[in-house]
């Protein structure tokens, strides 16, 4: 009796999970499907999830209207620069906060965490003015410099470094290793999983960023992929198929990263929830 009951619950749960999966995935199926359809087919009733014939017209249109290679290059440039800088600045700060001893360290760390409280949207106007005064408006450096620091990144890496035994650092010190040597030779190699999480989350954030580029960039040659897609959508809002084709192209890198690095993404987030 009890056994049947648990089995029935199991089946019900599985069906429920399947239903949720359907809701989560169906918009993306629609997207891919519509991107291969002619305009008159997209909203046909009943829906044909698999197009009768795969038309490439939308991809040809979008490739002509949006200079994808340039937008990809711009977005990639921003993503790589910001991620690289964050790895450097975050790991340095995390090292100081976890492995070096100096007066006021823990108070500084608390103050540093406190800066998380300042929402970017609240200060985007004065930050924009600072960037303008520095002459960096419509320059990728505006996004690179403002994006080079990440409190959350410092937090993750610090947690990671705290688990490295101090005795390792002490031993290196006795061997005559300075703080910089301990940082690069001992601590960094042991922080790989934290670094992987930081790299992937930052990559994702920068790739998907929309409002930052919208405010800081102006000319077409500097635009990012999200900006290009949003602009196209605004100008040709009834060219449904082409919009979907553009969306598919913009998602490809994210899908690749997710397939390769899902483990680090999920671990990083689960961890941040537990430790607050």
């Amino acid at each position, binding site marked *: 009796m009890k056994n049947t009951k648990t089995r029935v619950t*199991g089946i019900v*749960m*599985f069906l*429920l*999970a399947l239903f*949720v*999966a359907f809701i*989560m*995935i169906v918009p*993306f199926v*629609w*997207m891919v499907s*519509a991107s291969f359809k002619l305009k008159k087919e997209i*909203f046909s*009733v009943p829906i044909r999830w698999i197009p009768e014939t795969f038309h490439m017209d939308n991809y040809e249109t979008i490739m002509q209207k949006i200079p994808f290679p340039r937008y990809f290059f711009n977005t990639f440039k921003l993503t790589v620069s910001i991620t690289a800088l964050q790895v*450097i600045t975050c790991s*340095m*700060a995390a090292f*100081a906060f976890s*492995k*070096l*001893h*100096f*007066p006021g360290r823990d108070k500084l760390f608390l103050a*540093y965490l406190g*800066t998380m409280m*300042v*929402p970017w*949207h*609240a*200060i*985007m*106007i*004065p*930050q924009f003015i*600072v960037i303008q005064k520095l002459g960096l408006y419509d320059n990728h450096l505006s996004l690179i410099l403002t994006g080079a*620091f990440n409190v959350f990144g410092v937090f993750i890496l610090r947690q990671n470094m*705290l688990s490295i035994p*101090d005795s390792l650092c002490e031993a290196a010190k006795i061997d005559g290793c*300075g*703080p910089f040597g301990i940082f690069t030779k001992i601590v960094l190699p042991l922080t790989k999983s934290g670094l992987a999480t930081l790299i992937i989350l930052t990559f*994702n954030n920068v790739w998907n960023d*929309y*409002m930052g580029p919208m405010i800081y960039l102006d000319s077409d040659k500097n635009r990012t992929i999200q900006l290009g897609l*949003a602009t196209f*959508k605004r100008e040709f809002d009834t060219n*449904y198929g082409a*919009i979907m084709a553009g*969306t598919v192209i*913009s*998602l490809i890198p*994210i899908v690749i*990263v997710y397939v390769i690095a899902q483990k680090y993404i*999920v671990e990083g*987030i*689960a961890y*941040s*929830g*537990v430790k*607050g």
Partner: protein
Amino acid sequence: MAAQKTKKKSSRMNRREWIAGYLFLLPNFIGFLAFTGIPVIIGFIISLTDYTGFGKPNFIGFANYAKMFTDTDFKVALQNNLFYSLTSVPLTVLFALLLALMLNRKMYGGSAFQTIYFFPNLTSMVAVGCVWLQIFDSKKGPVNQFLMNLGMEHPPKWFWGVGTALITVVIVVVWKQAGYYMVMFMGGLKNISPDLYEAAKIDGANSWQAFWHVTWPMLSPTTFMVTILTFIASFQVFDIINVTTEGGPGRATEVLVMRIYKEAFKYGRMGYGSAIGYFLFLIIFVITLIQWHGQKKWVVE
């Protein structure tokens, strides 16, 4: 926290480590000073002026802050934002928790489900907005085609209806972010010791009682954390609205960040925009204070 430093160190070595410590913090210090610290101060100064982005600003005292009390655009945006927060936060927490509990059981294909549920979270709001605009298309979209097939003559207008636009935004956002917070909940669930469930079972608790007396209280720090995080994020909603409705129809989806953006970058009212920015800052500040106060009370470690 860290291990005690060994006492037998020459003061020269200590001094060297102090300097190294500050040097390692220097890049972050400069970055935050330039792009957060200074803007916080400048923002307040500008909020006391009529700065337009060009020319010389005039000092006008607290007029911009006073204006918020009479500006209906702002009041509507604040109302909408509160509605958005008070619907999207509980719905996100509820769905994220339910999904986490569901996947926490041993289930065929559990990790595949997790992969799928989490995926929308990684996609950009621009992409998500473009797709949902078509799915919720009021005339030809698949959702309304389906509803009309069921016999509904006037299905909701979703993004295009004054009464439905904001709730449609809520639906899309909950759909997108539930998977993210689900992962946080799953992290919290893994931290609950199986012994507690064992003990509850011995005491004759059914699964419902086990949930209320073990899972729910043990999970409360995570629930609290997720609530705070989604609440803070809900006051920064912008991307999805700018892609789908741009604040419309009428003012139906105007929210705080939309006001800041439009005032400053569309109408050139940098001073007034900064004042609203400070208002937003205040809201987040209060939520953070609640968090700090709550963490002391809630976190069981």
